[in-house]
């Protein structure tokens, strides 16, 4: 006889549970904490056997969709040594197709690994040879694989090198737009994993692909490829002719601040890393700071006219070429006696500029310099932008004020100077320089958009008109004569600045520049040419102005906006693609809003139902190209558009819809019955006034249907 207590036995089971828990606790402790570092190391070696797959980097386009930088498909060759039957034969075929030494391929193939890279980014010809060899090779190249890879091409080459930038071998941008928008352009790479079979050997299966790469976003620039190429070739020719050390050209559309071309020399080839040197990689338009010289007299002139210090007819004594300002002497290149303000600008007299500077006074002059954006970065989307050097008035010496008035003792970047001229061309409103229009993903969906943005008004429109007249006069009759073209009246200013050289500690070399407005009125293009240290001649009238002329001639021949339609007719035409401020049409009636927008040159697209515009896109006050769609959302207004209206046909509508229609007309309703509207009084089309009453006869839907059945 034996006894058993079920409680006892279930206790045994519970104890077993506790034992299992303790066992797992100890085991987990051992595996996860004691052996943690050992497994970490193991995992590292294992995860390193991930084979990376590169994705397609985003494309960089110019404003018209011309490719500036693009990834094109190419091939990399790899091999899976365990799958290769005849190592020697495979190595021979590979070395023949790819042009790599046999011994190196042979050694690679002999590695005890599941995967070896043979060659990266091979040429299309090599790829074709290899594919042919693989087909006709009778299995000798089994285990050799072509992996899709990408190579970046730059169709404009050296011409757009500084703007577009370069990428390093890891595929990350290091210069220009490639660097600035690297996070957008970059693709997220994928990888596949080498699986291991039961024998512990690497195998590659179709299933082992773990992560597909995702392509990067595309960047659309404001650059025009044609203008960029023209600017680059003009600059290169000028650099050779004048044996200049460096140079830069920047073209801006003044109304929007869009940069159409930005060229810097010396340049580099984005596909040849050997040409990437410190000097060549420098984008001088935004990085280099120089003393502008006479081109800066624009700011002096602007301040004088705006502050009413003098009028265009006021005359000044130019001291016959040598002016004394306290203990300092200021020289002019040519001797003049009494000159008017206009003549001063035409002949570019330093002495008069100095006098004007003194008349304006320190604080005001400093204020205008700041207002024109000197001494601060413009915020353009490029890396390494310089701010120039504009000292505070406390740090000015006795000569600072009048020296700055003719553009010495202040350093600026070419972009700042171009934007200052663009502000004058834009009737006194500074805009933010724009280099990127939008970023979109590979499906064309917009991720980010840039709209032209005004920063501030620096001069009145009247002042700007006078300045533009002066600029045109300087080209017609003054220092800028060599920039003149026949088909268009342009405005411009030369600048020959002495350059302080740190090595010789003297002002022995020069910076020659020309800033021009094309045309002088209704300006569509502002262009700045800067040549640094030209060897023989240094006068801007001889060096920089002809470059500008060549540039303008060639740009004028290519019929691309913003320079078409022809200039002689611009003033009388609706500017097809100018930037115009979007008027505020909110709360206007549908037809009024459409009329207002069409008048300025916009197209209109409506959405929603109602009589009043409740919202608009682009918003009121922003700049937009004429011809673009302005989307308006309509909604019901509180009050009807007119006092009297025709009653619509309400039959067949549900009660709710009918009431909504009536309330939109401010007509009260009396409802009889339920269901859908079967009759109305007064009938459809009769004129009703606000506050009138309409009687609706409603009938159930089923009865209606029944009735039609009969």
């Amino acid at each position, binding site marked *: 006889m034996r006894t058993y207590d079920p409680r006892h036995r*279930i206790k045994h089971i*519970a104890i077993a549970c506790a034992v299992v828990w303790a*066992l797992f606790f100890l*085991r987990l402790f051992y595996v*996860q904490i004691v052996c*943690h570092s050992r497994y970490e190391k193991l995992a590292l070696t294992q995860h390193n056997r991930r084979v990376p797959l590169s994705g397609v980097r985003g494309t960089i386009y110019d404003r018209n969709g011309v490719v500036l930088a693009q990834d094109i498909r190419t091939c990399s060759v790899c091999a899976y040594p365990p799958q290769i039957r005849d190592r020697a034969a495979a190595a021979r075929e590979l070395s023949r197709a790819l042009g790599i030494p046999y011994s190196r391929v042979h050694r690679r193939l002999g590695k005890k690994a599941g995967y070896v890279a043979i060659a990266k980014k091979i040429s299309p010809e090599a790829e074709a040879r290899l594919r042919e060899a693989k087909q006709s090779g009778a299995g000798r190249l089994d285990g050799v694989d072509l992996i899709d890879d990408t190579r970046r091409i730059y169709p404009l080459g050296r011409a757009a090198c500084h703007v577009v930038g370069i990428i390093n071998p890891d595929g990350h941008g290091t210069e220009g737009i490639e660097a600035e928008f690297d996070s957008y352009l970059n693709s997220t790479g994928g990888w596949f994993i080498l*699986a291991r079979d039961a024998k512990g050997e690497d195998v590659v299966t179709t299933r082992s692909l*773990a992560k*597909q790469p995702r392509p990067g976003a595309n960047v659309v620039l404001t650059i025009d490829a044609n203008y960029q190429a023209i600017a680059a070739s003009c600059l290169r020719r000028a650099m050779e002719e004048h044996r200049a050390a460096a140079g830069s050209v920047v073209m801006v559309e003044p109304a929007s601040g869009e940069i159409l071309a930005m060229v810097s020399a010396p340049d580099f080839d984005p596909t040849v890393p050997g040409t990437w040197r410190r000097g060549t990689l420098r984008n001088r338009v935004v990085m280099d700071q120089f003393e502008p010289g006479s081109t800066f007299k624009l700011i002096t002139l602007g301040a004088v006219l705006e502050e009413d210090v003098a009028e265009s007819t006021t005359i000044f004594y130019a001291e016959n070429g040598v002016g004394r300002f306290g203990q300092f002497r200021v020289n002019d290149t040519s001797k003049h006696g009494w000159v008017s303000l206009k003549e001063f600008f035409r002949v570019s007299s330093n002495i008069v500029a100095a006098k004007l500077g003194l008349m304006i006074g320190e604080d005001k002059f400093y204020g205008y310099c700041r207002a024109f954006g000197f001494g601060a970065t413009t915020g353009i989307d490029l890396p390494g932008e310089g701010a120039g050097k504009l000292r505070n008035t406390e740090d000015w010496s006795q000569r600072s004020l009048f020296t700055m008035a003719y553009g010495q003792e202040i350093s600026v970047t070419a972009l700042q100077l171009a934007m200052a001229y663009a502000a004058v061309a834009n009737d006194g409103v500074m805009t933010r320089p724009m280099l990127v229009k939008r970023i979109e993903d590979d499906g064309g969906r917009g991720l980010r958009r840039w709209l032209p943005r005004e920063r501030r008004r620096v001069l009145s429109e009247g002042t700007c008109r006078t300045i533009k007249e002066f600029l045109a006069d300087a080209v017609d009759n003054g220092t800028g004569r060599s920039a003149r073209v026949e088909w268009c009246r342009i405005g411009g200013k030369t600048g020959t600045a002495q350059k302080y050289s740190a090595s010789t500690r003297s002002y022995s070399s020069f910076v020659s520049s020309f800033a021009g407005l094309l045309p002088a009125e209704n300006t569509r293009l502002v262009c700045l040419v800067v040549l640094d240290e030209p060897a023989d001649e240094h006068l801007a009238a001889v060096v920089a102005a002809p470059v500008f002329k060549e540039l303008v001639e060639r740009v004028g021949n290519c019929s691309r906006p913003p320079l078409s339609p022809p200039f002689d007719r611009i003033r009388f035409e609706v500017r097809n693609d100018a930037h115009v401020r979007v008027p505020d049409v909110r709360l206007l009636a549908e037809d009024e809003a459409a009329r207002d927008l069409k008048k300025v040159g916009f197209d209109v697209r409506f959405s929603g139902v109602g009589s009043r515009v409740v919202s608009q896109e682009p918003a009121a006050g922003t700049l937009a190209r004429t011809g673009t769609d302005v989307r308006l959302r309509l909604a019901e207004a509180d009050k009807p558009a007119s006092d009297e209206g025709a009653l619509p046909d309400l039959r067949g509508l549900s009660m709710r819809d009918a009431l909504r229609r009536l309330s939109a007309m401010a007509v009260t309703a009396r409802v009889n019955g339920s269901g859908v509207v079967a009759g109305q009084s007064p009938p459809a089309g009769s004129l009703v006034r606000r506050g009138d009453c309409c009687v609706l006869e409603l009938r159930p839907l089923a009865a209606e249907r029944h009735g039609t059945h009969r």
Partner: protein
Amino acid sequence: MLEVFKAGKDKKLMGATILLMAVGLLMVYTSSAGLGASRFEGDVGHYFKHQALRALFAFVAMTVMMNLDYHRLQRKAPWVLIVALIALVALVVPGVGREVRGATRQIPGLPVQPSEFARFAVVLYLSSFLAKRGEAASFKQCIMPCFAVTLGAAGLVLLQPSLGSAVVLVLVSAVVLYVGGARLKHLAVVLGTGLAVAVACILSNPYQLERIRGFLGLGHQYQEDQSLLALGTGGVIGKGIGRSMQKYLFLPDPHTDFVFAIYGEETGFLGCVLLVSLFTFLLLRGLKVAASAPDRFGFLLATGLTASIGLFFAFNVGVVTGIIPTTGLPLPFISYGGSALLMNAVAVGVLLNISGHRVREGVSSGRSPWKRNVIRITEIR
């Protein structure tokens, strides 16, 4: 509406179950995302969506079972067993079952795998049989029929072939017999026979043999190595949910049998101990339900159902932590798969129903009257 949830008295048991199911859903999502993306055209939620639906279904099943008086199961036990055996036999008939990776475990159209259902049926039958026989348990009258049913069902499961399931089936039966009062000698016979069949099966099957050889260090054992690697790289607090590297196909089946390895990699030692403790808590609650069951049938049934969950848990975690060779058993409530989830939820539902019956009979001590009796077993020679 809330009335239906009041049937189960043991709120802690229910809470633990729901918590486990939630963790399970989370783990299925994080562990299968990469797999879903590569197999189903980037659909990272593919497995998760399926599993969420099944979890909902399982939860409903649990609620239904919770509100179904378990005594009604007692009368139907033989029929349930017969249905289960028919399903198992049907699998062996060519053309009925669906073959997945060399084993026929499913009948298309049925929500549960026959082997999962058979385990439940065997536990139910044994409980009702032993409860009917009462204290007078002789080898011939009591142990032999149980023996026959268990080994018969296990044999059919073995034919699929599914060695792991068969072993669990035998062990669950052994537990029921043990608490049912079987003598150790008799149990040893049952287990011994089971072991002999299992060994024979392993030796005759090169696939099984390879696993055992790998476990003993004589061959390769890719899954075990990778699973330990996953656990080991988890460290104390893990890499964080969704940060597992191993799930990217280093570990085959990251969402089914080896989900605990991914869990360990992502939540670390702390997370693992928490989950193991949660399971142990659930088992102890199950045993408590058994101990306070109002009658012998409830007692045996509760123990058996708890044991079936517990053995799956122990086998699965044992495999993942490298204590026992690979068996291919899922982790209850956590692993991807609807069949096991459904049957485990049903089991918990029955447990909850049993827990609701314990305060009847008006016994102030909370113990059932029958438990006070010391049952005498006459030894029959």
